[in-house]
């Protein structure tokens, strides 16, 4: 495990002005992983894009953790559908319409 690829939950929360309980609820909802085997709870920096998005939704749009979880699942569906539409469009291209 390379130390530089991790950030402590505490540091993250200080940077973003968000409560640690928010990050833990994201963990509880299985939106991200937290490594709590060490003295300090750590987040992989790979989780940051998702977590920062969730923090933005929480802070900018006043969405509570439960709402954020729902949004997360819907977003995944939207992105899956967007991919599917793109694939279908490519297939349709075969036929002269």
């Amino acid at each position, binding site marked *: 495990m390379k130390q530089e690829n991790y*950030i402590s939950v505490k540091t993250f929360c200080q940077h973003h002005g968000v409560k640690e309980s928010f990050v833990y609820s994201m963990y509880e909802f299985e939106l991200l992983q937290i490594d709590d085997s060490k003295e300090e709870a750590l987040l992989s920096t790979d989780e*940051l894009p998702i977590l920062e998005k969730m923090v*933005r939704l929480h802070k900018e749009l006043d969405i509570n953790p439960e709402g954020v979880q729902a949004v997360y699942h819907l977003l995944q569906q939207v992105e899956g559908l967007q991919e599917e539409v793109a694939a279908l469009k490519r297939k349709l291209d*075969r036929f002269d319409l």
Partner: protein
Amino acid sequence: MEFIDYYKVLGIDKSATADAIKKAYRKLARKYHPDLNPNDKEAELNFKKVNEANEVLSDPEKRKKYDQYGKDWQHADEFEKAKRANSQGRSRSSSGYTYSHAGGSEQDFSDFFESMFGGASSFGGRGQKVRFRGEDYHAKLQLSLMDVYTTQKQTLTVNGKNIRLTIPAGIEDEQTIKIKGHGGPGIQGGPAGDLYITFSITNNTAFKRDGADLYKTVQIPLTKAVLGGEILVETLTGKVKLKVAPGTNNGTKVKLKGKGFPKYKKEGEFGDLFLTYTVDIPKNLTEEQKSLFEALEKTNLA
């Protein structure tokens, strides 16, 4: 430069209270927030407009200035003169409602806004930008289908940095690849963002593509369809000779194995080329040909 009616953008009355403005802004921000509208350029643009409107109308001083000049925008000349006197040395083209796009959800402003209130620098972030990790960059790269028939090495310059890029053969149209760590720098020791490159692949060949398979319609003369024979067919890599079986029907499909497009990230593997035959029915017959067909008809040929 176009006048922007910020009240209209937020869908509120000119007499709206600060509270009503806030409410209207939050409602629209939820609708257009880029995190809720993935890959939606229109929503992104709307989000910027809404933010800009809020930036002006939620600030009593800016709102006052906007209300003052806003209603006289038709007399833009005087305003422009005053502006020139006020702020020298700002070199920025001012035409139309354009946004300088920096990618991501970074705030940026219309020319109208900048000419009235100066650049975005006059007021730092209002705690809107939530990031520690650097910004993700999004870029689009246009290639032709034949470009991606082979694996390409290309050097891109993104924000002054050269990035060597290997584009695997067979990449799909609108496929996005992520280049880790080549986005914006992190803030206070945070990790850098990523660079996303979306490929736009234009197909100006005679072939239709679906993944690694290629499709093409080939016309064959009526006589070859009936009697059989050989035809020459163009593939992506040159001409091939094909045997047409006697009695080939219109719409018959033929598969040429391995004559398709390279499979993405499977070196040396290719898809197939599917040909569909359409039988060319002759239209301008000579008298002789016509009588031959009539003779055929008399043989009760079905």
